[in-house]
């Protein structure tokens, strides 16, 4: 749609041929670029189809409509589209009991399906104690809807997610990462709306991990800790309610992804023999940071032996193609590798050298022309060519499983990590909320 609009802007009449499953997406795209009249014609052809008869039938059924769109004179609404009625955003939107509030928000499409904490004036004011920024501070406009990111809107969504005020510095830094993200294939906009169901994956480093009780040990990605749960959940709501990415309308993920509920990991810096992740990106060990990537998949594997050969063979054997790759070692393997001289860079280089795939397999995955022949079938090629797309970190508890988060992320060199700025009175705030932790009854 954006290309068709760019042609119209340059004086060339355009028709976009689109998949009929993406009509809502096309409407949103043309509206967000302020050219609602740009012409598009749906066909029944699936976007990834390589079936000639399916393509033939789908196009032939639409060819008359496509031709009509190419030659039909402009209509008055196309020449002078009416402005959309200005959306009136009332600050206080509802009054009701817990169930009524939840049904109202759910009915508006503002939740992730789980019940929310009602964002009352009092709760939002409490959340705002987690920042020095005034509530009306405008951080930017979040694509694709270009919703205004104010500190108060972050706080409202944070309350809904069940966050504590001490998470606000993380949420603000994480939202800034989304705002910095570029448009295009490697940017947040594409990952957020893609059929690939990519999920934001947040990695947090620095002393704040312990101050807000982020779990970096056993089950770091499992439910049970407010910080890991609510930070990711709040970011999902921010993407939805500020960025305007809604499932099945703008977010056209085919299968969806449970990681979209929340995927927040803190590096287990205390158990790591290596430098923390954020120091590889120019930050100091005492700094707090949040890093973003957009994995599509998450796998875990168990090495055949606990020596470096077994550990690294298992890692290499489980590398599959992805754009940005995070390998998470449990402390036990990290310590073994480090004790024998392995650095993070050694691991990256080893993976790039040894994780290989059949050249023909790679070509068939990315080929635009499925009839492409392969004359070098015996050759293998590296799965990961650029070690900068690899992230190595240490997290999790006792045990031998290694995790891979496989997917996408910002283009190399673009902002992918943000420093978390703490408000004045941070220590006092931490003290207030620090004891909110689960105390499990032993049985």
């Amino acid at each position, binding site marked *: 749609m954006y290309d068709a609009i760019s*042609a119209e802007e340059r004086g060339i009449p355009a028709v976009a041929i689109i998949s009929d499953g993406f009509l809502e997406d096309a409407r949103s795209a043309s509206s967000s670029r302020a050219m609602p009249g740009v012409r598009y014609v749906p066909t029944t052809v699936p*976007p990834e189809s390589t079936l000639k008869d399916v*393509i033939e039938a789908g196009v032939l059924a639409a060819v008359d409509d496509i031709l009509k769109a190419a030659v039909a004179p402009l209509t008055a609404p196309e020449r002078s589209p009416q402005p959309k009625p200005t959306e009136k*955003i009332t600050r206080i939107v509802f009054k009701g009991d817990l169930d009524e509030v939840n049904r109202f928000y759910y009915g508006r499409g*503002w939740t992730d399906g789980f019940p929310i904490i009602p964002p009352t004036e009092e709760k939002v004011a409490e959340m705002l104690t987690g920042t020095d920024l005034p509530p009306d501070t405008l951080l930017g406009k979040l694509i694709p809807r270009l919703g205004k*990111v104010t500190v108060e809107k972050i706080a409202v969504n944070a309350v809904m997610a069940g966050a504590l005020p001490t998470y606000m510095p993380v949420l603000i830094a994480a939202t800034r990462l989304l705002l910095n993200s570029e448009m295009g294939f490697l940017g947040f906009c*594409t990952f957020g709306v893609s059929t690939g169901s990519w999920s934001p994956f947040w990695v947090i480093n620095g002393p704040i991990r312990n101050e807000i009780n982020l779990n970096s040990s056993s089950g770091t990605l499992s439910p049970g800790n407010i910080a890991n749960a609510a930070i990711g959940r709040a970011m999902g709501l921010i993407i939805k309610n500020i960025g305007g990415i809604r499932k099945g309308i703008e977010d*056209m993920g085919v299968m969806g992804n449970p990681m979209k509920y929340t995927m927040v990991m803190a590096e287990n810096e205390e158990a790591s023999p290596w430098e923390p992740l954020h120091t590889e990106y120019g930050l100091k060990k005492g700094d707090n940071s949040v890093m973003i990537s957009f994995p599509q998949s998450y796998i875990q594997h168990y090495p055949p032996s606990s020596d470096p050969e077994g550990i690294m063979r298992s890692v290499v054997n489980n590398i599959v193609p992805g754009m940005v790759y995070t390998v998470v070692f449990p402390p036990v393997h990290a310590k073994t590798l480090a004790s024998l001289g392995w650095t993070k860079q050694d691991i990256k280089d080893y993976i790039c050298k040894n994780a290989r795939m059949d050249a023909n397999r790679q070509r068939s995955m990315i080929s635009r022309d499925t009839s492409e022949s392969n004359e070098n079938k015996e050759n293998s090629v590296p799965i990961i060519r650029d070690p900068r797309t690899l992230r190595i970190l240490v997290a999790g508890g006792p045990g031998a499983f290694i995790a891979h988060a496989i997917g996408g992320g910002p283009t190399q060199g673009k902002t992918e990590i943000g420093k978390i700025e703490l408000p004045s009175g941070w220590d006092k705030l931490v003290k207030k909320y620090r004891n909110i932790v689960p105390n499990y009854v032993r049985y």
Partner: protein
Amino acid sequence: MNQKKVTPLYEVISPWAEADPVPPRGLTVERPTDLNGKTIGLFHIWKRASKPILEVMERELKKRFPAARFSWYTESRMNTPEIESDNIAKYEAWLKGLDTVLFAYGD
């Protein structure tokens, strides 16, 4: 003594962000009334069905408009609008030679 249970009521703030209204732009370029003798651009992206769709269109257009000419363009960077790619100058030069253009495939 019976005490009436009081259900707390919550006045709640909208999580939905404000967005500045953007004045819609109308289409300004007249459409060609006949494609015969015209140059038709065929722009395809990386999605697998894109090029085959336009190949069918080219064939059908040739049948109906034998004097039509065709000019192909392949997006230079996956999922990136061409005007945001490094090839914007090439793209704009290509557009200048066209009377109309078909884009495939939107998803």
